[in-house]
């Protein structure tokens, strides 16, 4: 596996798939390093935006990347793109960390990211690449205000009232922007527009 040293040329979705497959089948450490270089700083940003401190975010990023190494053979490119798969691992590691943090006395061995997905049914089979492309297009057409709200919904557990205070807008406006953004995403994702 060739090594891409250029910082400003992130691996394309195809290259990402090749890298994770090299990790899965050949336990290729340089492919892991490349994926780490691309994803770890982004995962840490995501974790910090969802409220973890720098130190905890750093640790959970490590755990996410190690989980990526361990579970690489479970990655199925027909189900999701690599960034989506890593997003779900980071999300689950974060949940797990919050749960462990809250109950120090409980010996929590449960790692939600160990859960296997339900088997695919006929209705599930949308080509993942096509889906990711649709999503990219859908996000690109949101207004700045709608995109802000979508981001806040992903990265914050804050209730709407608190989001409204932070943005300095009425609660009703937050709720209607969320509804509009979701409607817009839904129609774009459903291919109605």
């Amino acid at each position, binding site marked *: 596996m060739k090594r891409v040293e250029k910082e400003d040329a992130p691996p394309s979705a195809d290259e990402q798939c090749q890298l994770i497959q090299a990790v899965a089948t050949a336990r290729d450490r340089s492919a892991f390093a490349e994926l780490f270089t691309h994803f770890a700083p982004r995962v840490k*940003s995501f974790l910090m935006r969802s409220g973890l401190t720098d130190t905890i*975010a*750093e640790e959970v990023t490590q755990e996410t990347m190690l989980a990526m190494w*361990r579970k690489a053979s479970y990655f199925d490119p027909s189900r999701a793109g690599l960034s989506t798969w890593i997003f779900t691992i980071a999300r689950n590691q974060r949940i797990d960390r919050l749960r462990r943090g809250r109950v120090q006395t409980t010996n929590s061995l449960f790692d939600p990211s160990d859960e296997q997905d339900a088997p695919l049914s006929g209705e599930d089979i949308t080509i993942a690449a096509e889906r990711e492309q649709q*999503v990219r297009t859908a996000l690109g057409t949101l207004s700045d205000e709608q995109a802000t709200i979508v981001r806040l919904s*992903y990265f914050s557990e804050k209730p709407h009232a608190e989001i409204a205070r932070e943005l300095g807008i009425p609660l009703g406006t937050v709720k209607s922007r969320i509804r509009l953004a979701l409607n817009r995403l839904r129609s774009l994702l459903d291919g109605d527009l």
Partner: protein
Amino acid sequence: MTIHHHPSDETLLRHAAGTLSAGLALVVAVHIEGCAACRARSARFEAVGGELLEDMPQARLAPDALGRALEQLDLGSSASSARPTNVPRQAALGIKLPQAMRQCEIGPWRWLGPGFKWSKVEIAGSPQAKVMLLKGRAGLRLPAHGHTDMEFMQILFGSLSDERGQYLPGDLDEAGSDVDHQPIVGTESDCVCLAALEGDTRLHGFLGRLLRPLVGF
């Protein structure tokens, strides 16, 4: 199985984003397990998350972050395979539980009222989550009530109906503060559902009032 009542898009988004509380997330996971439409929808919301991740600015990592990760690679794989599997205690309730609940501790049926039983569900690592299985006898009329917090209810067996419609196995009801209703259990059989209440602080609402004196939540 035709499913008529689904979680809202906002709920599916928050579930995909990992920002739902543990109890509500469990009920949604059970729904998604049985609902291909919501599974597909949820995959799309996860793809939105993947896209947002790809667009994230790059946070500064500790200088030795990659080196430490590389050192851990071999340790990590052996440690995880050696990790013991958690076997939760689950009382035999006479129903087949969804896969999404296999890591939960499940208590025995306990009396809650005439023809009405409940069982405490505990989520690993989230003992404060207010989740329970409820079982009502065929034809049982529950008292009319409103809601203060969000309550999610997923029908596992039998049916319920109220002013808004009928709820069959696989259906999920999201009841918020705008819902006032009087559910009635279908006459064909007992009804079993999984219910979760939002909020960590106090128990409000109908289920809360019923459960408060009985439950050590």
